[in-house]
């Protein structure tokens, strides 16, 4: 059984950067003044205007779009699709618990709107087991006293927590 508090964003950050995950999961929010986060939100809005489908909330997760066959997750860029993959797997698992079987689809909105890239994910037995382990790890991790030490890397420069980590 999945605990109530782990959301898609948290699992995504856990794979992407553990420190970002801890900060976000422990309500240290610096995303409100991040231009990139704002752009992502707007792209989301525009996409949902076009397709007239809105976000669906189930328990604590928010699903971008659901069709007869697919669960769709929208992303601004295809940087670190691995994190997104786990995010989608979590959603698929949630739906499965509710008795809804879907395949996962990740839609990437490039800045140049012509080449839309689509990636597919399916929930397999191995993934499910891995996911359960991962969720336990994340829960333990989030309840730790302090976030892990910041490690500088190239992905940091676009992060909303950049200033926080590199004071």
């Amino acid at each position, binding site marked *: 059984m999945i605990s109530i508090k782990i959301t898609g964003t948290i699992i995504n950050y856990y794979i992407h950067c553990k420190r970002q995950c801890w900060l976000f999961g422990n309500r240290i929010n610096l995303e409100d003044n991040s231009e990139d986060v704002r752009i992502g939100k707007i792209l989301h809005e*525009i996409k949902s205007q076009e397709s007239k489908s809105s976000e669906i909330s189930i328990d604590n997760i928010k699903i971008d779009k659901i069709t007869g066959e697919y669960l769709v997750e929208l992303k601004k860029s295809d940087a670190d699709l691995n994190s997104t993959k786990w995010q989608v797997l979590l959603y698929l698992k949630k739906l499965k618990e509710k008795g809804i079987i879907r395949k996962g689809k990740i839609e990437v909105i490039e800045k140049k709107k012509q080449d839309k890239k689509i990636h597919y994910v399916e929930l397999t037995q191995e993934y499910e087991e891995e996911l359960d382990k991962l969720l336990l790890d994340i829960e333990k991790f989030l309840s730790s006293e302090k976030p892990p030490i910041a490690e500088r890397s190239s992905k940091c420069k676009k992060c909303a927590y950049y200033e926080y980590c590199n004071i």
Partner: protein
Amino acid sequence: MSKNYNYNYVFLFYDVSEKRVQKVFKICKKYLIHHQKSVFRGSISPSNLIKLRNELKRTILSSEDFISIIKLINKNSFDEETLGTDNKKSESLFI
């Protein structure tokens, strides 16, 4: 993400049919400063630029109207000369 410039200043020129010109004017006014009869300009964040572009796209009729947006890095990346007087009651450019 190859050529990813951070544009923060735009000039916007529009040729829009009279039926829709009011709407377009109102949208532009939300984000930019009215500069000449059908020219707007001003500082704008990349996220607001996406918003503006989207709103305009939904308002105009693409077979009849024409909007051109010149994007610049910031307001120091161009130079301006003016001749004559601006009779519009707009914000003075020289405070």
